[in-house]
């Protein structure tokens, strides 16, 4: 399909919007809530791990690095299965009653995004020169101050890591379908339905145009989040 013919298909869809606004809004809200929460939690865990692996020598460091690198390419369906097992009645967290909830989707996206954010952040913080870290220490910085300087110096790389993690999370279908169930409420609004699972459903039912429209909304969302993160990265530079 050429760009012109694609636009020709999408334009009437935008004009005669084929969904209830409440439905689309709820899908976007669930998608953003799940992915942004998962990425925020992943970042909180990943940055200290990246700093630890980057600058400390300890037993098992090579093994941990291998686990992180393997995790970056881990199949999402397998992650979904493992998380589903863990939270199902037979699993260790069965009593928490998480199956087919947004919390379960956050857990599975956390597992998918954390290795990506850790791996890319690790490369970024490792590239910060030891001289700069020494300068921060020599000027009276504590270990926390040196870590803050390292994060500020590596902020562009860390922003890339967060974006890569967000991209992995929001574009994810397999695991959120397994642990979330792609559920909509009786009033038609989303409970655990995300943009990706909604697209999958529309395509499965042969409504390609509407699937494409949802896809366009997803792309715009990713672009907006990217722009915000890049802006924040540059802001850190201005005041760093």
């Amino acid at each position, binding site marked *: 399909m050429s760009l012109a013919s694609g636009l020709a298909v999408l334009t009437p869809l935008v004009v005669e919007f084929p969904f209830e606004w409440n439905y689309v809004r709820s899908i976007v809200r669930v998608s953003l809530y799940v992915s942004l929460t998962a990425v925020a939690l992943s970042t909180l865990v990943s940055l200290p791990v990246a700093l630890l692996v980057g600058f400390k020598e300890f037993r098992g460091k090579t093994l941990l690095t291998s686990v992180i690198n393997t995790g970056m390419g881990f199949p999402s369906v397998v992650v979904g299965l493992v998380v589903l097992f863990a939270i199902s009645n037979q699993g260790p967290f069965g009593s928490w009653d998480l199956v087919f909830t947004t919390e379960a989707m956050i857990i599975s996206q956390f597992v998918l995004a954390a290795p990506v954010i850790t791996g890319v952040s690790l490369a970024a913080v490792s590239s910060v*020169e030891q*001289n*700069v870290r*020494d*300068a*921060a*220490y*020599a*000027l*009276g*910085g*504590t270990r926390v*101050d040196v870590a803050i*300087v390292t994060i*500020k*110096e590596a902020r562009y790389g860390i922003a890339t890591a967060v974006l890569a993690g967000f991209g992995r999370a929001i574009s994810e279908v397999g695991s959120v379908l397994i642990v979330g169930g792609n559920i909509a409420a009786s009033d038609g609004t989303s409970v655990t339905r995300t943009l990706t699972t909604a697209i999958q459903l529309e395509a499965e039912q042969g409504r390609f145009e509407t699937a494409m429209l949802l896809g366009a909304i997803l792309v715009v969302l990713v672009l907006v989040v990217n722009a915000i993160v890049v802006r924040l990265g540059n*802001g850190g*530079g201005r*005041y*760093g």
Partner: protein
Amino acid sequence: MTLEAIDVHHGYDGETVLEGVSLSVPSGEVLAIIGPSGVGKSTLLRLLALFDAPDRGEIEFGSERVWTGSQQRRLEFRRRIGMVFQEASLFDATVRRNAEYGLRVRQSWIGRLRRELSALVGMPAETIEAMEALETVGLQEKANQDAASLSGGEAQRVAFARALAYEPDVLLLDEPTSDLDPRNTAVIENAVLEAKKRGIGVAIATHDMHQAERIADRVAVLLGDGVIEVGDTETVFESPADERTRKFIDGELIY
């Protein structure tokens, strides 16, 4: 307030670098540490800056043993020492933010948060001490420039101002002018003399004999077997007590 190394031994990966080195950096005096490359001048300065504990021997600050005290006490000592390295190693920020760094880390977290928020809304709080330090090295006009836009010499001058801004008791300089042109070297040397006037004790590692003669009150000669001679600059250069010192100064010792 005197910073002292007492019979210090230190090495890396089983290789001894310093063997029984003793010297002191008293207030209001410039001590030049001279010696060939690889002899352990930087290692000695890093021990004095409390980066590492010596393998043997003591580091004392104001006659107090540094490494037998608590970590908090050691942080207090560290915060009375400034250090400038051979490379400027400025942070990726404005010149002013670089000069303020030492002052910033000495503030409470609430104070720091308030400053960060002021900066974020475009009203950065100006620190008088940092601006005065930049004035000492003649760079107050460039305070709001990105540090990355400076020349190598200017960057090193900012690194010096950054260490001077929080008024340390002791300044440790590790070959700070070895990559600089004569003009920037002169600015740094004048700033060293200015720091001395303010009562700051300065130890400068250098292999520039002329620089040592120009700015140092005392000279310590480090030749691989520890400090072999410490004395007034004139005495060490004109009539050294140790024959190896004379040979090193005259360029007859080959390493």
